[in-house]
């Protein structure tokens, strides 16, 4: 199978991921098509974590001994690598969180307490979109409820793109924050974040970009994105769970009040009052995810070594092939844009007559892992009048043969449930 754009050394890359050698469901090879949910980890990431735990483990900053210096260097070195991965102007603008959800909540939460120009209150508006992951909806609902601000959102077109027709009504002088996803985890849509950011800038609104699905797939340049904040999560970029990233523009990070309080985020503490450390530490209370940062550093190095452009091309090639295969299944409807060029590698679909949960179950008995449900995007499902869908999602290790297995599995599913 040769499709233009596929990673040339695909079999070599697959060898880097130990789990891909596993068999499931009674000896069948694992066909892992759930990477938008979480990605698998290459050996080098796992090894970096083991080496850290077995040889360099210590707490950071505060520890001045040899192990402490090694652990601090490993942790802060990971910050340098992540800063380079997203082309951050300064390493100090990279805040480690526990996941993307916390990164988004950090922004919403500190805005709830901000004073001065960043303060959010009655009469102010927060703009999101109907295709957001719950983690980019609920924090803003809470902010609106707690400050009296109003939550508004971009609707979607029938082909699963943002409906930009009313942008000038939506993003106005009242808008304080615009928060949107770069790539939809359900529809696959790639949004024109830089255009929307430019419009938001005109009215002086802050722009938050949820890059949870973008960072794994696209070359990310935080400055070019036009955003004030960019959030993503370690476990989707072949890194471990327990770590996420919030990049923020220095001026804004500096102007925000602290998020969580405690060790590491202080300059000085007395019983009466405390002062805060500079960024990024101001936002990193307590012992940070040290071994997770080590793993994440190795992960982004791995992705950079393969090349984000090449990974993006691979995703597009696989997605195009998958769209073709899926649409050959009778009764199957793909949600979201139908052309691979304008979308990411998550493809959600419906199969007439079979509930997604049942589709996933049949596929699972064939060793094929897909996701079924609302994918933490209930409003986007509601917009298309469906309660749930089945989603396949690829990554740099996905092969055309795996897509073939999926398509075959779907034909089998139809026959098993006697539809058509």
């Amino acid at each position, binding site marked *: 199978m040769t499709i233009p754009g596929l990673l040339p050394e695909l079999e070599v890359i697959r060898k880097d991921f130990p789990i891909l050698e596993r068999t499931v469901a*009674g000896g069948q090879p694992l066909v892992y098509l759930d990477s938008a949910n979480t990605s698998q980890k290459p050996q080098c990431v796992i090894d970096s974590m083991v080496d850290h735990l077995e040889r360099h483990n210590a707490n950071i900053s505060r520890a001045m001994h040899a192990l402490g210096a090694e652990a601090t260097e490993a942790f802060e070195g990971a910050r340098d690598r992540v800063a380079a991965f997203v082309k951050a102007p300064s390493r100090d603008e990279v805040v480690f969180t526990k996941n993307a959800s916390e990164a988004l909540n950090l922004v919403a939460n500190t805005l709830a307490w901000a004073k001065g120009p960043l303060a959010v209150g009655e009469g102010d508006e927060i703009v999101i979109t109907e295709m957001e992951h719950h983690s980019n909806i609920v924090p803003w609902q809470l902010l609106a409820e707690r400050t009296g601000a109003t939550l508004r959102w971009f609707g979607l077109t029938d082909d699963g793109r943002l409906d930009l027709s009313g942008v000038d009504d939506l993003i106005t002088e009242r808008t304080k924050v615009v928060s949107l996803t770069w790539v939809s985890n359900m529809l696959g849509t790639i949004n024109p974040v830089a255009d929307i950011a430019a419009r938001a800038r005109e009215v002086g609104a802050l722009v938050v970009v949820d890059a949870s699905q973008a960072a794994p797939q696209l070359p990310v340049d935080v400055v070019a994105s036009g955003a004030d904040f960019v959030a993503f999560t370690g476990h989707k970029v072949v890194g471990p769970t327990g770590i996420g990233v919030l990049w923020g523009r220095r001026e804004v990070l500096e102007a925000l009040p602290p998020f969580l309080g405690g060790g590491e985020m202080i300059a000085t503490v007395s019983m009466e009052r405390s002062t805060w450390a500079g960024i990024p530490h101001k936002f990193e209370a307590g012992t940070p995810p040290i071994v997770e940062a080590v793993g994440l550093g190795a992960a982004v190095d791995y992705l950079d070594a393969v090349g984000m452009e090449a990974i993006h091309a691979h995703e597009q090639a696989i997605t195009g092939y998958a769209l073709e295969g899926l649409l050959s299944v009778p009764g199957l409807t793909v949600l979201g844009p139908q052309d691979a060029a304008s979308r990411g590698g998550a493809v959600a679909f419906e199969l007439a007559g079979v509930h997604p*949960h049942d589709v996933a179950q049949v596929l699972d008995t064939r060793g094929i892992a897909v996701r079924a449900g609302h994918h933490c995007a209930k409003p986007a*499902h509601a917009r298309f009048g469906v*309660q749930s869908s089945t989603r396949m999602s690829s990554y740099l290790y996905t092969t055309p043969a795996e897509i073939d297995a999926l398509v075959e599995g779907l034909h089998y599913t139809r026959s098993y*449930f006697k539809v058509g």
Partner: protein
Amino acid sequence: MSAELDALYQEIILDHYKNPHHAGLREPYEAEVHHVNPTCGDEVTLRVHLDGDRVVDVSYDALGCSISQASASVMTDLVIGRRVEEALAVHEEFLALMQGKGTVEPDEDVLEDGIAFAGVAKFPARVKCALLGWMAWKDATSQVLRNDNPQETA
């Protein structure tokens, strides 16, 4: 793999899925509840109508997979017409079956078509599906019972 699937998707289940019994929302009722399975989003709106200690009607509107739909259908067959106490006992029996990880032998005399769900117990992710309707029924029923003077809420 087909054998494994067949253990889960018994003919009885697929029959109930295609032709659910007692589906739809009806009046009168003394309590209505809405339950969701947050994981996969399956939803059920369910009403119960009791007359004294008797389950006169259970009506529902369910969105969900074959297992959750069929289970709601079977549940209505098992509880409608029964005394509340008996129905709750059946519920207990079904719960025990579902939580038994495949080790509990189902009693056909009690569970009737419900024995078809024995295979579900081996699929932990599906147990929640099979219990969705039952949990909603139990919740609605308790609401009515908690209410000393049941009133029509319609």
